[in-house]
């Protein structure tokens, strides 16, 4: 299979993502330039982390207007898989492909640290190879990562099992103490109702290398690979 990683001006996790995908899945990952509209027949589109167009207005608000995003939205609306990590998640919310919004962290500061995640739904193509009864140590690095949606939206998302990951403590509890940024109900990652568009603030690509002593992120990529090798085959 072939992965595509979109490169906006100001993206800075694009190469990390390409490296992690290729290292973990042994599949090809190509970069898609923001000025293009051709997705080059990739099977899966990633929107990487970074500060697209500087993110001076509101994270992701300019990126959604770029030529490539018009193709990405069409791709997603046809049911093909798209995932945004960090700034990519913000762009997907701005584009309306995912519900909710990402607000400034409650402490008003950028936070870079490990976070512990619990997987709430293991029946998606992003999470099928993950386990619901263990913690995943995945780093976060953002200033605007506080997931917010109104109570009705949250209720509907929960009813449709759209909450994929929550920030938890050592005991797998979504406690206040475990919530790094003030996200509603400790939400760290979600998907759309159709389960083909995914967004998460933590960076699995930063936890997918033995040399860095953290491989907790590998399962995210292996789940995607598994889907393409087994479910679709």
């Amino acid at each position, binding site marked *: 299979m072939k992965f595509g990683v979109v490169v906006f*001006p100001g993206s*800075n996790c694009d190469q990390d993502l390409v490296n992690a995908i290729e290292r973990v899945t042994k599949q090809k990952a190509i970069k898609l330039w923001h000025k293009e509209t051709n997705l080059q027949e990739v099977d899966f589109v990633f929107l990487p982390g970074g*500060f697209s167009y*500087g*993110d001076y207005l509101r994270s992701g608000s300019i990126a959604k207007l770029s030529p490539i995003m018009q193709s990405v939205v069409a791709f997603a609306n046809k049911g093909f898989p798209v995932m945004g990590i960090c700034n990519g998640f913000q762009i997907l919310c701005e584009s309306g492909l995912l519900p909710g919004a990402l607000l400034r962290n*409650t402490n008003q500061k*950028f936070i870079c*640290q490990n976070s512990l995640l619990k997987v709430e739904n293991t029946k998606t193509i992003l999470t099928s190879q993950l386990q619901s009864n263990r913690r995943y140590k995945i780093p976060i690095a953002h200033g605007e990562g506080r997931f917010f949606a109104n109570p009705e939206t949250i209720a509907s998302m929960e009813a449709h099992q759209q909450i994929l990951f929550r920030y938890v403590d050592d005991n797998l509890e979504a406690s206040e103490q475990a919530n790094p940024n003030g996200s509603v109900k400790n939400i760290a990652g979600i998907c759309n109702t159709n389960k083909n568009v995914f967004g998460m603030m933590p960076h699995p690509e930063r936890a997918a*290398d033995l040399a*860095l002593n953290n491989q907790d992120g590998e399962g995210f990529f292996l789940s995607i690979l598994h889907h393409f090798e087994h479910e679709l085959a």
Partner: protein
Amino acid sequence: MEEKQIVSQAKALGLTGEEYLKIEAILGRTPNFTEICIFSAMWSEHCSYKNSIKWLKTLPKEGPATLVAAGEENAGLIDIGEGLACCFKIESHNHPSAIEPFQGAATGVGGINRDIFSMGARPIAQLNSLRFGNIKNERTKWLVEGVVKGIGTYGNSFGIPTVGGEVYFDDCYQTNILVNAMSVGLVKVGESVSATAEGINNPVYIYGSSTGKDGIHGASFASKDISEDSVNDLPSVQVGDPFWEKLLLEATLEIIQTKKIVGIQDMGAAGITCSTSEMSAKAGVGMHIDLDKVPLRQSGMKDWEILISESQERMLVVVEKGHEKEIEAILDKWDITYAQIGKVTDTKNVEFYQKGMLKASIPSESLVLGGGAPVYERKFREPSYFEKISSFDDKKINCPKDLISVAKFLLAQPNIASKNWISKQYDSMVGTITQTTEMKSDAAIVKLENSEKSLAMTVDCNSRYVFANPKIGGSIAVAEAARNIVCSGGKPLAITNCLNFGNPYNEEVYYQFVHAIKGITVACEALETPVTGGNVSFYNQSTSDGKSVYPTPTIGMVGLIEKQSHITSMSLQKVDDVLYLLGPMSEDFNSSQYLAKYHHVEYSPAPSFQLSEEVKLQHSLLQAIRNGWISSAHDLSEGGLFCALAESCFQHEIGCQITLNSKVRMDALLFGEAQSRVLISVAEDKANYIEEHFHSHNVQYTKLGCTVGDELKINDHNFGTVSALKKIYSGSIAKELSND
């Protein structure tokens, strides 16, 4: 304009009468105002190093791995094998940060990274060294908040991990904070570029941000004392845009890849003036520059404003004639503003035109360091405060009864306590090469792609020691940096230095400067770590009280870890390991945090230090690490043995039980900061090898005890559970600075 008026303007811009006469001699005529501005900027301390270069030249520059030595290019270059070169440099942004902490610190980060990528190297890691006044002071809190946010906002968006650094709080930095930023980059050997301008008629381009009125006279501003009027210099502070910097990085590296350019230089201090004259001087050529073509942020800018503006994120490139379109296509791809503003000429003069009029014409050579820029020999004399230091008598300091409370007091001291509140505001993991996220080590470690090797890097300077004894303190700064690299499993390769001092015209300050350089020199020679570059920041003193900062020669060091298995943590790895102290059990507590913060003694000698002992320790320790005998290694620094022990316990919450000889005074044993000492833990079955190894290398060692349980116990005293001590250590700075 009358000559008298020009002379008084020259003085107002910081040029001396003697310098003015020199300018007249160079030009053979009376300079005009624009030319005075140019000379003032280029001959400022900041650009010309006129009061420091004589001594900088005495630093050892050549080593077996040196590819580009200090002073030759924007940054030095060392060979790290496998066809790769490491390019690294540290620079100060003290003055701007003292009055506008956010932009001051942000543009410091921007500037140092441009130095690296204008050499053709991709930055891979950043570090910083920060010094503030008393943490309880409201202004300090505002400065810390602003500086940290500035570094984070710029560095995080730029997308290069901030992997390490140091932060100190001392009253001497109350008015003059220090903000030193370091960047480390990689380039293939043979693919680096030079800041030169060869080839008559080759086109000269400016690209990046438009030029505005920010940062005008920034170089001159950085070359004087901070006073109450400094706030009037606010327009001298530049404004940064990390998004542009990121585009500039990608476009610059792509341009360099074409191999169709002659030279590149970023625009730092003194803007267009500096880059055009330095690039011209380097090749012995001139440049014809049309200022009307420079993209401007605002209309009506005067010629001299354009020339010395320090607007950020701008580059000057000389392109091989005939390849303009190729370069322009790359800049278009990245949506970067550019303009051809002139060409290389054979006049040897930089000539600046506006509206068809020649506004300035100056021999490029006359403006630059190593050319016509002035070089001064300054007088120095031994500081009078040395008397107070030599009269210190440690016998008069009573050993407190309750050492457990002292230990807890020290763990909470801002110079010892965890800086996590600060460092977690920096993206330390972007780039996915940072190996010290999961494994704490004395140096930051980043992995080299597709290689068994890693780079270790650190910034260090205990300025209290330098104040006590500039020469020994300078040596210790280098030794400690090297010790940190060795503890992480690396071999120290080279250093960059950022020399922060007071006013060079003060003879006592200049004494500190000269002797710190002497100390750095002997240590660099003994440890075989040449100086690849750096910068000097004088005038770190305020006019209100005339007090200067502690002499602070910050050392940035890079080392090479040959194999992944050599990477060594500072953290205890498991219970039942044996703990050793390498180096002497010393009774010395001079210039320790304990003496300064607990007993409030400001004047005491530097801690004991023998360079030959240091070299022996480092060589034998690195060998033991490479032999696979060491579980953890942690250098003894601020807070001495106790704090080293506690810090080693924290990450995996492993306790220890140690026994100390109670015949020597216990406060000195626990909290003294005698140098050349390392705490190591080793597996029980390696203990014999270790003892034999260090014995045969003639390195003193003491078996302290073992790792056990979850408490820290020394002799019969229980200092508490590791988790309770960790709480004090990690919460202290947050408690002072947090408003959440």
